[in-house]
Each structure stands twice: as C-alpha cells, then as structure tokens.
C-alpha cells in the first residue's frame, strides 16, 4: 500500500476561489463537516485578479434594470447557447448574493445616496457591476475567506488533487499531495464539489496564473463526467503586451467603462468601423454619445469599445494583422484623453482605476493618466466545462458537483464581463447547498484502495526516471505554443487537425517526464503532474472546435466565418469512452420555455 494519510469529510470542496469558498460557507451552514483543498495559500486564488465587478441587477444606478434585462443580456452575449435555466437563476439570485456580502464585511463603492455603486460594462444594458475600484475580485475573495475562517471549515492549503475516486459510480473522494512536503493525502467524502477555475495555462499568452491548468475539467473527464462547450475560449481584448514578461496580464474592461477608447496606429477609433447588426440599436452613433454613456447619461448608448469581448478581441486582432498595430504588437487603449472632458482627470483616473495605474506604473513604467496603454488579446476564460444540472450544479456523476469557471452552461458561447464573479457566488452557493443535502442523505463511501495506490505510484514515476526523460517545463511550453498558434483566436480546420497530431506526440512525451531531487515544493514535479490535465483539456478544446463548423461567440473559424443554423441548437460534448479515447457528440440545447422567450423578445428593441 502506497504511503499516505487519510481525511474524511461529508463535503469536500476542491478549489478556494470565489466559487469554492462560497460553496464551503453554504455547505457548513448545511450542518455537515466540510473540507476545503486549495492549490495555493488561502486567499490567493485567481479570483483576486478579477477587476471590474460583479453583475447583479440591483438597479441602484438605473431603476430600469431588473433580472429580465440581465437574463436577456446574458443570453444575447452567449449567442443563445447558454443553459437558459442557469442564466435565469443567475439573473434572479445575483442581487441577493451581492447584498449578503455586505453583511459579511465587503465594502463596495457607494452611490451618492449611500447604496452599492454599479458601473457600466460590455454587453450589459444598464450599469450593473457592483465594484470596489478595480480590485473587486480581491474584495470578494477576502470577504468570503474572512467569513469562512470562523465557520470550522478545515482548510488544506497548497494541496493538489491528482485523481477523483468513485465508489460504485458515485463520487467518493480524491487523492492529493501536499505541495510543501510532497506527501500523499487521501480524502474520502460523501460529496465532492469541484471549483477549480480555468485552463488559461494551455495557452502562451494568458491572464491566468500557474493554477489555471484545467484540473477540475480533467479530473471530472477522467472519471466519465461530460464536458460541454469546450470550443468557447474567451480571449479578453485587453491584456498587457509589453514588457514581454507581463504579456497577457489583464487590463480591466473598466478602463473602457470609464471612457477609455481603442485606437490604432493611425489614431483611428476602429471600433466604430465594425458594429454587428444585432448590437447596432444599442451602440452609440458617434464618440460624443459614447462618452456621455460612460458618464452615466441614461439617454446615451454605449460606445463600441464596450461591445462583447469576443468581438472587440477580433477587431484588435484584425488591426494588428493589417499592420495598424502599436509598436509591440497591440493597439492603443487611451484613458488619458479624458483630460479634454474632466478637469482633474489625473486624480479621477487614479481614483477610478487605482490598480491599473499602479500596474502600468510599476511594470511598464507608464503613466496611464498621461499616455495611452498598449493592449492586445489574452486568453482569459473558458466558457466550457463540466456539464451540470442547472439548479443543483450536480454533474452527470452522482455526488460530484461543479461551480464557477470549471462548470459550463451559464455563459454559452461568450461570457459577459462581470458575470463571472456573480456566477461564483450564485452557483457556488447552490453547489454547497446541494452537496450538503446530498451528503446528509447518504451513507459513507468506500475507498477504492487499488485506485489510491495506482494514482500515487503513477505520480511518482517521474522521480523513478531520474535524469532519463523529458523536461516537463519544455513540454508545457511546447503545448502552449501549439494551442496559441493553432487553436487560438482565429481558427481553421487544418491547423486544428495539426494541433491534434501535436497533442498526441506531447502526450507520449508527457508520459516520459523526469525529475530529480526531493518531493518538497518541487515545481518541476508539479508541472509534470499538471501536464496530464492540460493535455486533456487542450484535446477537448481542439476536438470541439473542429466539430463546430461555424463562427459564434468566442469561437471564430476563418474557414467558416458565418453563424450556421444547425449549430444554434446544440452544445458540443466530450466524454471519455470505454477504451480511454475522447468521444465527441452533439447534445441538443434544452428548449427555452415560452415565458423566457418572451423576455428575450421584449428586450430585443
């Protein structure tokens, strides 16, 4: 028997970002024992990077807002591939989830009458994002973290999960190792919640930290859960492009929400040149109207810089490819220009966008109150993920729940900015609630000792090869190059087929990694173990993207640039087949009930 210690909980949560913490709070409220595993220290998860805010139709800044408008905005943004029920739940419950944070110590920016202030964001019809300057993610994670630590939740920091364990087809726990000492831990549980976030590390240019290796997606996939919508990757239009070491780091959409404009090297506001027909009625006809919108003029329509992220990213990509880019391969994002409109613009920008000011000042030696930034698309978010029941967040494996970025459904083909933080708290809560309910009604699970031993022994193989084998960092870099160049922002079938061939070759190399030294905090070993997950999700992305022979939302095919009706009613789904290969199929979208169809129609004008 391989050496390990064992822990037992009613509900085990994997991941301690916004969704995992919110799930932990709700599960603990449900009166069950709760264990929480996170890859980093508590409070460091990628949620801290979220800047702009969390979308909730509280109507504090514009009383025309309500859940119906938010629902319709989310569906339109997702090109109607969303799970309608998740979009409905999200729009209806987000306001309460945001308000309760205040009772846990969150301190949002205020309106003049003392309520939670809400800002404009791309794709949202009314100002809807509750925020704290441009560090809303930090506020969210700290609030949840500080609330959780008093609830008796057992936190296992700096632990990585290797495999999920099943008992007769039902989730039964996980095998993990602690990163600090390299010791193996087995966690048995009656219900498991995956809240592991995204997979941006499959790409070279990404806003994601090292943690975004698609762990939850891959763990669930390996035990037979279904993944949907994996072709939909969100390339955030504005990442830093210079200096090279910070390439990909996010520049919040809030810059554009506060009046920032995109310009090419000729000084042209190119976003006015390409406004999709279905957004024309809501888009400003000239720069002046766009500016008035950003300053809260309710009669004005939004500037084209605030169109959906997929569209803005492609427009930037086009400008750069056409040779109208900035010196370091991006375009210009200018907030400094507002000095023409606002008296003390320097102080105004610093107050509204403090972290952006700080980030550019410290990392690029650039003062955003005086000069334009250089920005370009960066891999930001995956819309696809584990297929879950809309109400309970349970996956197709009994007792296995998923919430946040690793779950799919709410976003469809493209996520609106601000819908992620609200997704975390709405569905994190539901996952915790239903996981606790599931655990209360079930007996203990039996640990599959054979599976535990296999997981541990195979994890140690890189050490056994010693010096004879592949460098894991090199394989990761080669995979990132492959995904970036062949399954990126603009795709073709032939390139993606080539990517699949390369992924197969990388799989063979990944099975032959070697590391030396001891197991304590060994990044090389950790990277070797992460490769399996990255390769699985990369293959899922490429296979789903090949099958969707059209362009929609975050998925753009140069060889099929139009939307095709036959794809408007299906999600791509991948699943592990009995022989271990990846099986792809189309699953029909659940039909939208009439009352929600009516909401969509009424909001179209």
């Amino acid at each position, binding site marked *: 028997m391989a050496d390990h210690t064992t822990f037992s909980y009613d509900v085990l949560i994997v991941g301690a970002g916004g969704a995992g913490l919110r799930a932990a709070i709700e599960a603990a409220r449900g009166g069950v024992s709760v264990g929480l595993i996170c890859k*980093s*220290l508590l*409070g*460091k*998860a*990628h949620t*801290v*990077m979220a800047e702009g805010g969390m979308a909730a139709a509280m109507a504090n800044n514009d009383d025309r807002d309500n859940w119906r408008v938010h629902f319709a905005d989310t569906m339109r943004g997702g090109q109607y591939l969303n799970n309608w029920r998740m979009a409905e739940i999200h729009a209806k419950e987000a306001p*309460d989830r945001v*308000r*309760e944070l*205040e*009772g*846990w*110590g969150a*301190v949002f920016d*205020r309106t003049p009458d*003392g*309520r*939670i202030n809400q800002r404009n964001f791309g794709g949202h019809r009314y100002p809807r994002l509750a925020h*704290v*300057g441009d*560090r809303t993610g*930090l*506020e969210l994670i*700290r609030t949840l973290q*500080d*609330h959780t*630590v008093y609830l008796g939740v057992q*936190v296992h*920091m700096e632990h990585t999960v290797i495999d999920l364990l099943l008992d007769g087809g039902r989730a039964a726990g996980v095998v993990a190792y602690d990163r*600090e000492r390299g010791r193996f831990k087995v966690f048995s549980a009656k219900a498991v919640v995956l809240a592991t976030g995204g997979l941006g590390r499959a790409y070279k240019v990404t806003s994601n*930290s*090292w*943690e975004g290796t698609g762990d939850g997606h891959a763990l669930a996939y390996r035990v037979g859960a279904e993944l949907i919508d994996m072709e939909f990757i969100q390339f955030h239009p504005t990442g830093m492009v*210079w*200096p*090279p*070491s*910070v390439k990909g*780091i996010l520049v919040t959409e809030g810059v554009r929400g506060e009046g920032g404009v995109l310009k090419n090297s000729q000084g042209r506001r190119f976003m006015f040149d390409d406004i999709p027909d279905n957004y024309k009625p809501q888009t400003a006809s000239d720069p002046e109207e766009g500016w008035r919108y950003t300053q809260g003029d309710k009669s004005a329509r939004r500037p084209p810089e605030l169109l959906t992220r997929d569209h803005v990213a492609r427009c930037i990509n086009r400008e750069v490819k056409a040779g109208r880019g900035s010196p370091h391969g991006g375009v210009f994002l200018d907030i400094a220009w507002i000095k023409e409109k606002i008296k003390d613009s320097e102080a105004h920008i610093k107050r509204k966008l403090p*972290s952006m000011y*700080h*980030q550019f000042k*410290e*990392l*690029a*030696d650039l003062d955003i109150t005086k000069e334009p930034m250089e920005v370009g698309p960066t891999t930001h978010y995956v819309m696809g993920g584990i297929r879950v029941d809309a109400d309970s967040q349970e996956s197709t494996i009994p007792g296995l729940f998923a919430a946040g970025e690793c779950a799919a459904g709410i976003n469809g083909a493209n996520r609106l900015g601000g819908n992620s933080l609200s997704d975390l708290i709405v569905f994190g809560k539901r996952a915790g609630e239903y996981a606790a309910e599931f655990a209360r009604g079930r007996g203990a699970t039996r640990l599959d000792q054979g599976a535990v031993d296999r997981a541990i022994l195979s994890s140690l193989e890189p050490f056994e090869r010693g010096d004879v084998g592949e*460098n894991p*960092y090199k394989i990761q870099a080669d995979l990132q190059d492959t995904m970036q160049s062949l399954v990126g922002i603009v795709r073709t079938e032939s390139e993606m087929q080539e990517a699949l061939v390369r992924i197969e070759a990388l799989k063979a190399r990944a099975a032959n990694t070697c*590391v*030396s*030294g*001891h197991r*304590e*905090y*060994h*990044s*090389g*070993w950790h990277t070797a173990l992460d490769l399996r997950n990255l390769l699985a999700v990369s293959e899922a992305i490429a296979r789903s993207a090949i099958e969707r022979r059209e362009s929609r939302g975050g998925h753009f095919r140069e060889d099929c640039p139009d939307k095709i009706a036959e794809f408007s009613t299906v999600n791509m789904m991948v699943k592990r087949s009995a022989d271990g290969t990846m099986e792809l199929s189309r699953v029909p979208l659940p039909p939208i009930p009439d009352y929600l169809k009516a909401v969509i129609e009424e909001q179209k004008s």
Partner: protein
Amino acid sequence: MATATFKLWRTRTDGDGAFQPYQTEISDGMVVLDVVHKIQAEQAPDLAVRWNCKAGKCGSCSAEINGKPRLMCMTRLSQVNLNEPVTVEPMRAFPSIKDLVTDVSWNMRVKQTIQKFAPRPADAPDGTWRMAQKDVDRVQEFRKCIECFLCQDVCHVLRDHNKHDEFIGPRFFVYAANLEMNPIDTADRVPDLKDKHNIGYCNITKCCTKVCPEHIHITDNAIIPLKERVVDRFYDPVSKLLRTVTGPRRQVP
C-alpha cells in the same frame, strides 16, 4: 542579450541553507520573479518559489531582494543593481519550508483570534446598509491589503523579538482597523488590542509602512488610531474620572 548573476537561497535537507549563484540571460522589462522562473526552468527544476498572479495582486511571492522585503513580481530589474550579484532569499520572520518558500500559516491562525465582523441590523428592507463613500474611504484603504506579509516580515517585534505568541503584527492591526472603522460594525476590539494583541509593543518605527506594496499607511492610518483608542479607553485620566461617575463605557452603536 545581457547576463546577470543571481544568488538564490537554497535550503539543504537538514533545513540549513546557503546562497547559490546562477548566471542567467536577462532582457528588457523583466522582473525578479521572471529571473527566478528562468533559472528554475533551465538550471534548477527543483527550486521552490511560491507565486501566483504575477501582477502584484495576490501577495504570494514575497521575498527579500538584496536584503529588502519586496514582491518578486513587482521588482523590475531596472530597480536593482545588476553589476553585482542580486541576492534573493525567503522572508526571515517565518520558518523556512524550502528555498524561497516560508511557512506563513501563523498568520492564518492569528486572524481567527480577532473578533469577527458584526454588523448592526440592516438599514433597509432589502438587507443592505446606507454608507457614504467618504465614510468608507479609510476602510477601503485597509481592504487593499493583499496579505503578502512583508509588513510582518519587517516588524522588529516579530522579526527580532519573536513575539509571535503575544503580538499580531501590522497586517492584523490593519485587519482590526478595517473592522473597527467599518461604519456598520458593532463589535468592540479595543480591550483585545490592548491585552491580547499587545498593540503597545509597536513603537511606530514605520518599517511596515515602508515595505507595503499597496502603499497602505499602516502606521499612520491603522496602528496609531487604534493605539489612540486604547489610550482613550484605558489611560486617559479625564475619561477615567468620568467613568467613575457615569459607569463603564458602553459601545455606541
């Protein structure tokens, strides 16, 4: 491409350690964390370094660079002298785990000793409160904290006098201040600050403020106002006299 020498702290299995020099290529715009990663990928795959967001937002990559507590991800090479070897070592006020990584779990335990947020009943039927921006500005300053613990690392009371059992350190005075000054909080943490958390040990040398990567005015805006509350409550002769007449001070909601 230029090269530079970095001396990174490497621990041995017996827990002790030494600086080990690495020569590496450097390029324009790099930060210290990039160099550490480059060395890790090319020369020292088992080098331990903790990091996360690489944008100064998560506070994971705290270290001492040329002896100064800093975030590795926010220290550009243009800010250090590359003509001499650059030293990078772990925070010294915390136990070592390996190489550049320290055990900061003490901080997590300290937080739980501070009375949690306790809001007054909601002001509005929807369960929310009304607060003016000007009343939350100072709390928002404290809430910028990214928990990098550089302030803890540099605090004499912890670093030189090892008072971890009696003193909570600047990070948790900031945390306590954020709760105490929250307009809707009703708890009273002043007695704990005096007796349990020993705020009196701080002799306001402002070392914490100097190293804060978020530029929080830790000493002026958090610690000194909290010290004043302790003094007003327990040491001010006038209010002491008044209390003998009016009875013990009650928290005004």
